[in-house]
Every structure is written in C-alpha cells, then in structure tokens.
C-alpha cells in the first residue's frame, strides 16, 4: 500500500488494465417466462390506469358538486377544504396512477434487452474541413473586402451607429433620480399622525416605553403616494430623558424624552419596527441590524453601516408633536451620490 502522496501521482496506466469481461448473463423477469406472472403484471397495469381514470372523475365531481365552503377534518392536517382537496387529490392521483401504470408496463412487460449504439467522432473529416476553408476563402476573395476599404469603413460607420438607438429608446423607462432620493414629505411644522388612523399625537399621549408608528400629516382627502410611504414613516419612542446618551445637538432634537427616527432601515430599506422596550434597541427583521435608541439609533449589531436618521421634533402651540425641520440627511439605503459624512 503506497502511503506517500508524492509517489501516488507517478502510478499511471502503464500497468496492465483488467480486461472487459463483457456483460453479465441476462436474467429474465418473471413475466418473461411465466404466463401467469405476465397476466398478473397486465392486470396490475390495468388497475393503475383504471384508478387514474377514477381520480379524474373525482376531480370533475369535486369541481361541479362540492361547495367551496365545506370543511372536513383530516387527522394530522386538521380542517381541510373539501372542494380543494377533491380537486387537488383528483388531479394528483389521475396523473400519478397514469405514470405509474406506464412505468410498471415498461418495467415488467416491455422488452428490456439493452441495445448498443456507436458513437461517431465529432471532429469533421479533414476533407470537409478543407472544403469549408476553401469555400469561405473563395467567397471572401470574390467580395474583395480587403481592397474595398471605402465600403468597409462606411459599413462600419452604419453598423456601429446601430448600437446606440436601442439603448436610447429605453431612456423613458424612468425619470432621472436627481434629488428625489434626498427629500421626504417632512417639512418644518408637519404634524406627526398615527399610522393607520391619521390622528395627530399629543406629547402627553405617549407613556414611557411606548412606541408609535407615524406618518406626516397630509391634507384632507389626499391620497399618500406609495413612493412617499417608502420614505416618510417615522418611529416615535418615549424614554425617560435621563436614559439618553446623546450629543447636545441630537438631544435638542428630542422633546421631553420623546425621540423620532426614520423607520426605513439605513441598510436595505425594510421597516425597522421592532422595538425592545427594556433594552431600548430597535431590530430590523430583514437582516437583524440592531440600533441603540439611547445613542441615537447607533448600529450595534448587523450589517447596517449608518444609524437611522433622527427627525427634529417639538410640539406646536396645541401640544401636538410636529417636525421642527426636514431630515438632515437622505433616509433609507445608501447610494453612490449619498454624502454620508
């Protein structure tokens, strides 16, 4: 037994190969020799085909006669819709039994002697190759492309320009991004309203430990655009003011322990809505980025690279929470043109 790997690679086919002993003697099946077994196999195939037909009838019966709101109890699976089950099982068994019948027929009754085909070499014969080369060379010589440089260049000019229109025609697929990714609906004085419900929120409505899903208030009877809903949602969280560990500028953007963050994850744009009241962490369920609310939604775990943008909030003269200014940075995932410094 060779153990040294470097020697193993030297062993090659110089040593004599074992000779091909030829196929093993053919073993006949029961149905090949015993007529009773043959009849039995025939019957089995026939039963399978018949079951297939009966299953199709089950499908038709379920479609026409079984109401769509009937539920029956199946062990392990619980209450199942009888109509669906009848359609589905009818279709499934009609197909399965047909297939099984065909295969059983092939396996037990059809001739199973193996046949040999021979492979031919793929490489074309040398004569064919030479002929091809001669044909192409001849045609090229007749066209005299090498000498017709004016034609060559003008053809190149025409075909080259064909590449541009297909790209150009796709220009109106969408607008240019411009500054759209950098603005939201939030402006100075915009009220925060509940989502859903659209009710304005008093600062006193929130208890410590509460979180509220909010959107910017819109005028009566105005529909929100989904492209706005993809950037506008804001989370309102109330902590005790002493829980914050923020810089003075960030602290000034809170109001009496209430802090507001964009709900759109800075990683890939999912809604970061999971708030853990005791740890004061926000968790995004898509990729498990975790943000620490006490430190301004700083990322403490996961693939997000930037904290959630904080919204500057205060109360208006009626006590309702409002934005004091729009977001100071683009919300949502990063992009090339984003100035993230």
């Amino acid at each position, binding site marked *: 037994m*060779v153990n040294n790997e470097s020697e193993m690679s030297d*062993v090659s086919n110089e040593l004599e190969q*074992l000779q091909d002993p030829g*196929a093993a003697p053919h073993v006949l099946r029961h149905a090949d020799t015993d007529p009773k077994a043959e009849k039995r196999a025939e019957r089995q195939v026939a039963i399978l085909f018949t079951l297939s037909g009966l299953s199709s009838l089950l499908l038709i019966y379920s479609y026409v006669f079984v109401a769509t709101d009937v539920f029956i109890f199946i062990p392990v699976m619980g209450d199942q819709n009888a109509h669906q089950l009848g359609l589905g099982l009818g279709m*499934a068994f009609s197909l399965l039994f047909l297939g099984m019948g065909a295969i059983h027929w092939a396996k037990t009754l059809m001739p199973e002697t193996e046949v040999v085909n021979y492979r031919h070499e*793929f490489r074309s014969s040398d004569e064919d190759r030479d002929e091809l080369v001669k044909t192409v060379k001849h045609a090229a010589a007749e066209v005299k492309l090498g000498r017709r440089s004016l034609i060559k260049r003008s053809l190149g000019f025409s075909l080259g320009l064909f590449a541009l229109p297909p790209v150009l025609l796709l220009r109106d*697929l969408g607008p240019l991004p411009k500054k759209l990714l950098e603005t939201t609906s939030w402006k100075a004085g915009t009220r925060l309203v509940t989502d859903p419900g659209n009710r304005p929120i008093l600062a006193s409505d929130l208890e410590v430990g509460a979180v509220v899903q909010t959107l910017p208030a819109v005028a009566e009877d105005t529909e929100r655009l989904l492209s706005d809903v993809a950037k506008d949602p804001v989370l309102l969280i109330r902590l005790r003011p002493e829980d914050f560990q923020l810089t003075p500028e960030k602290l000034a953007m809170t109001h009496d322990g209430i802090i507001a963050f964009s709900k759109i994850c800075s990683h890939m744009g999912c809604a970061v809505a999971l708030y853990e009241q005791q740890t004061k962490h926000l968790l995004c369920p*898509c990729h498990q980025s975790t943000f620490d609310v006490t430190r301004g939604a700083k990322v403490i775990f996961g693939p997000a690279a*930037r904290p959630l943008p904080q919204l500057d909030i205060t109360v208006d003269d009626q006590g309702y929470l409002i934005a004091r200014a729009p977001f100071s940075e683009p919300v949502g*995932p990063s992009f090339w043109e984003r100035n993230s410094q």
Partner: protein
Amino acid sequence: MTTAEQRLGNAANFVDERIGAAGWVKKSLNKVFPDHWSFMLGEVCMYSFVILLLSGTFLALWFDPSQRDVIYDGVYEPLKGIKMSAAYASTLDISFEIRGGLLMRQIHHWAANIFMAAIVAHLLRVFFTGAFRKPREFNWILGILLLTLGFVEGLFGYSLPDDLLSGTGLRITSAIIQAIPLVGTYVSFFLFGGEFPGVGFLPRIFTLHILLIPGAFLAVITVHVMLVWYQKHTQFPGPGRTEKNVVGHPILPVYMAKAGGFFFIVFGIIAFLSAVASINPIWLYGPYTPGQISAGSQPDWYMGWLDGLVRMSPPLETHAFGHTISWNIMIPALIVPGIVFTGMALYPFIESWITGDKREHHLLDRPRNVPNRTALGVMSITFVMVALINGGNDIFATNFHLSINEIMWFSRISIFVLPPLAFVITKRLCLSLQRADRDLVLHGLETGRLVRMPSGEFVEVHAPISDQKRFILTSHEQAPALEFSATDARGVKRPGAIKNKVRARLSKAHAVGLPKVSAEDLKEIEHH
C-alpha cells in the same frame, strides 16, 4: 393489413411526401439512452418547466398585473374594505373565487420550487460525475445560464402578487441595484419607473416573467437538450461500456414509456403537494406597503443563500468625497455571487487546464475516483448551506430557542472555517473509499464466516466479487500529474514560469489517488 395499420400508413405517407423524414425518424426511434436514476434529474427540471408553462398560462388568464389601487370587495372578510393593488386583489380572487385557482397557484409555486431544486441536484450530478468535460463544456455553460434565468424568473414570479413578503424582497432588490456605484440610482429608477416602489414595475416584470424569460428558457432548453441528443448521453463505466458506445434502451418503446410515465409522475407529485400542503398564502401576509414588515421575512429557498450572506456581512461602507460605497451590500449580493457563477461556468476549462486533459470523455467518473473535484464540490455545497441556514436565522431562533446574535456569529466564522474543513474531510473520505474498493478487488467480499484452518488459525472467508464488479472498480483512469520544468534544456528560465508552477501544483493535488488494482496485482494475489 388491418384498418388501423392502413390509416396510420396513409397518414405517414401524407407527411412523408411533404417532408421526407422517414430516415431521421427511424434513426431517432432507435436512439439509445442509458438507464440510471441520476440521469432523470434533468428530466425533472424539464417536466416541471412544462408544468410551470401550463399552470402559468392558466393564472395569466385571470391575473391583473397592475399597481393601481383598488378597495377589496371580495369574499375574504379580513381584507374587506382594505386598499390594495389590483395585482394583489386579482390574486385573492384567483385564490378564493376561481374554482381550481388556488390549486393552480399552488401547483405553479410548488413546481417553481421543485424546478430550482431539480436544477441544483442535476447540476451537482453532472459536476460530481464529470459529465461537463469535453465535448460538453458548452452544454454546462448553458446549464449555468438556465440556473441564473431560474433565479430571476422565480424572483419575479413570487413578486407579482404584490404581497407584504415579496414586496419586502423587491425593496431589498432595489437597494442592491441602488448600491451599484455610479449607475445604481439610474438603473434602479429606470427599472422601477421612478422611486421605489414605482407604478410601472409590476407590469414590467409581468412581461418579463410570462414572455421574455420563458422565451429565453425555451430557446436555451431546446439547445441544451438537442446537444444531449446529438452528442449522446454519457454513461457510467461498466462491462460492455466504452468511450465509443452507448448502452441502454431504445426510445421506442421502453424509454418513451418510462420517460413519458415519469412526466405524469412529476406532475402528479407536484399536484399532490399542491393538494395537501399550503404554499404562499398571500391573504395572510397582507398587501404590500413599504411601512410594514413581518418578523421572519425570507425569500424563496433558492435566494436564501444570498439573504444569508447579506445578513452576516460586516457593516462596511466607504464614505469619501461626497459619495458612498456600500461594501456591506455589494460584497454579499453582487461580488460573491458574481464570482460563484463565473467560477461555475468556467469550471470545465479550469479543470482541463489543471489536468492538461484535452480528450473527449463519455464515460462518467465515480466521484470517489476524483477526490479533488468531489472535495471541491462538497466545499461549495458547505459554503452555500452555511449561507442558507443563516438566511433563516430568525426562524431557527424562534423555533429552537436560540439567539440570532449567536447564530450570526456562528455563521460568520463557519463560512470561512467549514468549507476548507469539508474539503479535507471529503478528500480523505474519497481516498478511504478507493482503499475499500481496492481491498474488495484484491480480497473479495467479507462474508463474516470464520473457518478454522488445520494449523489452528482462524481465518475469515472472503467471497470473490464478480468479474463485472471487478471491472467496474478498476476501469477508471488515473492520469499522472502535469510536470513543468522551470528552465529549458539550456537552463534558460521559461516565460510563464509562475503560471506553470501553479498549474503543476494544482495538477499534482488533483491527481492524488490510490493506485488501482492492475492485472499483475491480481496474479500476485493468486499465489497467496
């Protein structure tokens, strides 16, 4: 001649007088396909594709691919009066109000999942048996192309109903596109028709999903299968099988019956799953709005490894000169898959470069006889599995009472540690199996019967294996490694010396194997 035969003859004559295909049809009907269960995985792909076409056509007759808002007024109470897109509402109608609609939706989605699973299984079979070698490299590349098309088609397919789960997936897709430097925002705006979610995106992916991509599939699958037809299928080594022949059953009648029957079986199993197992219950997810999300949001299984890679990525971004580069998105979602797919597509050429083997191969390898390739394959599977498991880390955490943070750290470390470990273990396993084969050939099968010799010694009786089995275990090739000298005959250093050194190293590793039993070895044994 019976009337049936006469009628058939007339019909055949009608066609033949116009096309003259008798010669070709005769040849085709006698074509032979070797019989092994692992050769049927490609068939599962093809048949599930047909099922996708049929069920998809049914669904397209009722589906409304529009993002315009409607107020739901159908039979499903928990969503009555809720604003949603017409796409979501029409999917609800298909599920609740069209008889057979929910069944067809489930058949379509189960078929898609099984289609992708079969492609992966088929790819692994072709890889581990070396069926991608010359002359089949181009077919391998077409296969990788089909895999890629499948990813995209599946993503678009499950995003069409515009439910909360798939809408979240589209949000992530737009973030990936947006992260591309320089052109990301433009490509995203053009694809979505504006800011996410856009209003024209759903109709656009509908056209791609039912027209352009299935068209591409049909074209590529046709070439893929025609190449198999023309180049003839590979076969496992065995008695009577050589590089110059194919042994199997002819198309008419056996192969047709078995393959045809298998189509109905594949359809039947998919239909059975659709009858008893619920998939994609969109009415529970709710309509998509970007402000909502569900715990445990995952894409369909074949995208799961990408999700897992994104989750375990470290939070790397570069902020410089007023621009942002998101490495935490680009590396796991663009760069790594790019390397994986390109590497897969080029692998036949990489391997032939390593072995220097430029011959045609029609006999398959048993995986244990190519330990290096098999180990590489298992290493890749391990990599994908770690990523896949991490993609479901919150589901595992919830159901098995684990911590997502711990699973994440486990995945971050395992993705680097486990694949090389799997490589080493697999290679050793292959060599052990080769040793076991060698023992089997030389000493025969252990029967477990003990016999006492006259001398008092106890010995176990070994039964010799059949000649056919012995041939199978020794007919594989063991090519020597490539060698390159760094200098030529006069001692001048060859150009490309480093490339050759790398190649020689890789070739040596690839050629590691136990020497197989030769005829001389057997003669020696006989003297025992």
